[in-house]
């Protein structure tokens, strides 16, 4: 593979031809902020927060859309670069609500991180603030367009990852907004509530409804697991706080799905804590289920199955194993039927 060698902040770095300056800078260990850039999406080079100084270039190019070239000399943190980034952040913060205190995204928000890093405070220009109603018509997703920085990741993800293009930029100038066709509520659009837009949004503009107010981002323990619904086998992180699963966030490292999921995987696992969960063994007595101890229930099952096996033979007992349970549960079940009961009468809904 042909390569190019360039200098980033005085350090030489060699990358495959076709690599962007941004990726080369990252490879060299430089800090370059991004907002509209996403490695899995098309690159509009729109937010310009990733600007760098390149020797010989007339202005500060956006590094995410500039190809690294042989011998290039790049500065990622020169005074001009820092100044430009600060101005971009000041403009964004100028019409951004100042409510990080109660924002669900706080602690996992790029805007907040960069403002902190560059010490940019809101109100530099004292311009007009956006004043949109918070949209919570959709059952799963809350949209607060006042917090939107118009990076466009959500609409690119919707189109490029989900193949849907439910949302797009609407209106012009200060009024520019991410909206559905005819700016209808999400609930009335063709949106399938997959939440992929939420997963890529760098700010608190798009959030998972059920998780709001449940936990600060830093309190959440993330446990990577596999979806319990369909056979695609999406991976994601269960978000856990205080022994309770409060929701799901996606994980870019997931092999089949990356950060994309469907509505069930992303928003449907609340069944875990359904009040209808069975939490005690139950024995039917006179037609009614009565709670019992494990010992009583297990002894009863063992003695009943034992009796039937002795009286009618192993083949009078059958088991349905489960396409919803783990491999290990299934292995144990078939081993139980074959070794402990003595029959091959074990099957599952392989066919649905």
């Amino acid at each position, binding site marked *: 593979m042909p390569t190019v060698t360039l200098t980033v902040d005085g350090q030489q770095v060699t990358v495959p031809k076709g690599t962007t300056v941004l990726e080369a800078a990252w490879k060299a260990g430089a800090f370059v902020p991004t907002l509209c850039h996403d490695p899995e999406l098309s690159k509009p080079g729109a937010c310009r927060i990733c600007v760098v100084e390149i020797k010989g270039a007339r202005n500060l190019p956006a590094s995410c859309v500039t190809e690294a070239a042989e011998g290039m000399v790049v500065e990622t943190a020169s005074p001009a670069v820092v100044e430009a980034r600060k101005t971009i952040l000041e403009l964004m913060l100028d019409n951004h609500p100042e409510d990080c205190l109660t924002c669900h995204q706080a602690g996992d928000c790029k805007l907040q991180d960069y403002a902190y890093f560059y010490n940019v405070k809101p109100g530099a220009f004292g311009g007009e603030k956006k004043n949109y109603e918070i949209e919570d018509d959709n059952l799963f997703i809350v949209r607060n367009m006042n917090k939107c920085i118009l990076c466009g990741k959500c609409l690119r993800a919707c189109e490029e990852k989900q193949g849907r293009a439910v949302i797009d930029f609407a209106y012009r100038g200060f009024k520019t907004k991410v909206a559905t066709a005819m700016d209808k509520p999400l609930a009335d659009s063709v949106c399938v509530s997959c939440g992929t837009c939420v997963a890529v949004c760098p700010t608190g503009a798009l959030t998972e409804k059920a998780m709001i107010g449940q936990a600060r981002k830093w309190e959440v323990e993330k446990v990577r697991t596999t979806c319990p619904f369909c056979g695609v086998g999406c991976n994601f992180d269960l978000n856990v706080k205080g022994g309770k699963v409060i929701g799901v966030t996606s994980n870019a490292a997931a092999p089949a799905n990356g950060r994309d999921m469907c*509505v069930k995987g992303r928003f449907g696992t609340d069944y875990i804590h359904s009040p209808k969960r069975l939490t005690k063994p139950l024995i039917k007595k006179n037609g009614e289920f009565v709670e019992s101890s494990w010992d009583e229930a297990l*002894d009863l099952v063992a003695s009943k199955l034992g009796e039937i096996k002795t009286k009618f033979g192993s083949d009078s007992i059958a088991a349905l194993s489960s396409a919803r349970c783990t*491999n290990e549960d299934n292995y144990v079940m078939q081993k139980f039927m074959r070794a402990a009961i003595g029959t091959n009468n074990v099957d599952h809904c392989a066919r649905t």
Partner: protein
Amino acid sequence: MTNSFADYLNTDLFFVIGSNPTEAHPMAGAKIMSSVMSGKSKLIVADPRRIELAEKADIWLQLRPGTDIPLLNGMMHIIIKEGLHDKKFIEERTEGFEELKATVEKYTPERVSELTGVPVNLLYDAARLYATTAKAMLCYTLGITEHICGVHNVMSTANIAMLTGHLGKEGCGVNPQRGQNNVQGACDMGALPNVYPGYQAVVNPDIQAKFEKAWGVKLDNKLGLTIPDMMDGAVEGKVKAMYILGEDPVLTDPDANHIKKALTKMDFVVAQEIFMSETAKYADVILPGASFAEKDGTFSSSERRVQRVRKAIEPLGDSRPDWWITCEIAKRMGYKMDFESPRQIWDEMASLSPIFAGINYDRIEHTGLQWPCPTVDHPGTPILHTQSFSRGKGLFKAIEHIPPAEMPDEEYPYLLSTGRILYHYNITTRFSSALDAHRPEEAAMLHPADAATLGVCTGDKVRVTSRRGSVVTKVNVTDKVMSGMIWMSFHYRETPTNELTVNAFDPISKTGEYKVAAVQLEKVV
């Protein structure tokens, strides 16, 4: 699946038949949608309903339910007639081409059009497009398998893929997207009446000896019962007891009343469940299992990828991991199953199953592995059959049309077909308050012409009656279904669709014919 989901991004043509991935396998559907939308790939859809993908398709073949074989035979007829088949692939990798040719010879476009309802010109377009696109991938699901001729349908998809050489290569293949999260895994683990873990036949004496040695007991070498046979056996009084783990046959198996009869007849039924399912209500003992968030283990996805399930919280209340419960019963019956952890269970399984021998928890910590994976240094198998098929050469099977077991007639004039919707997964999702609020009830799809005949509008109720049962449902009037057909899901205990479906099964796979039943409709006032 012969390929990986990642490979979906490499194909130039999807041929989706009997599958509604944007609802039933949404992330597979999303890959198809985005690839088609970006112009990367073309799309042929064969489905009686105007499903979402049909609207995006270059060619939509609206075939009558249960006519997949004539459709595929008809396409193969055209492909052979026009010399578009892959002669080199057929020569080197397959057998039985002459028999296939002789059979499909009879499926002229005109005859096929008559049987399927698909216009002749579309048959030509689809056949030519599929045969002449270098990288073409066929995807199917239950619309192919849930018929009395399911196995033959599957063979037909293999036939057309082999005929055109669309197998064993990047971006080419036949991909049955497996339904439930771990249906692949349950098969892999030997939760089947004919095989031990790793698809090792129970009738093979060497295999039997291996498992007898490992498990320290004498094992039975005759085939066990499949679910339909178990249920029949229970009704006949031969099967006396049943241990049901995490399945709800009353709601999800065909002909629910037959299942209820079976459950009532047995002496003893144990249900191991996380919710009070319709089936659990018939149990004598209910053992509360733990949900996937409360236990460690693995699932195997449709792409044969073994992936970790991790315990995030403690089992709720007094619930317990399912493997633990089963082991406890075994112990109390005098057979020791002393597993301490799922990892230990996996290791025992892998030590007995060559196709999984190379997979262990350490190796799948991050991305999982796709079996076959025979040794710990094997990288796993993303694409099957790149060099040869399991039996060496791929065998063409000449297949004739088999009409569904029950077709509409004067008494039951409408055709009922069933399936899944996006917002629910079988029954568990009904316990998700968010999902259930979004789609709380059945909305059967009915064509406007039929709605007019019956005098109903969207939101009105109809009574749907078959020879086996009768349910009431709200209707959604839409031209996405063809007239003469009603389409329902099976997620709702309030509308137990499977009381209607037919108790007819593919003789080989024992898969129920969920996709076609004859029903009568009347307005409920």
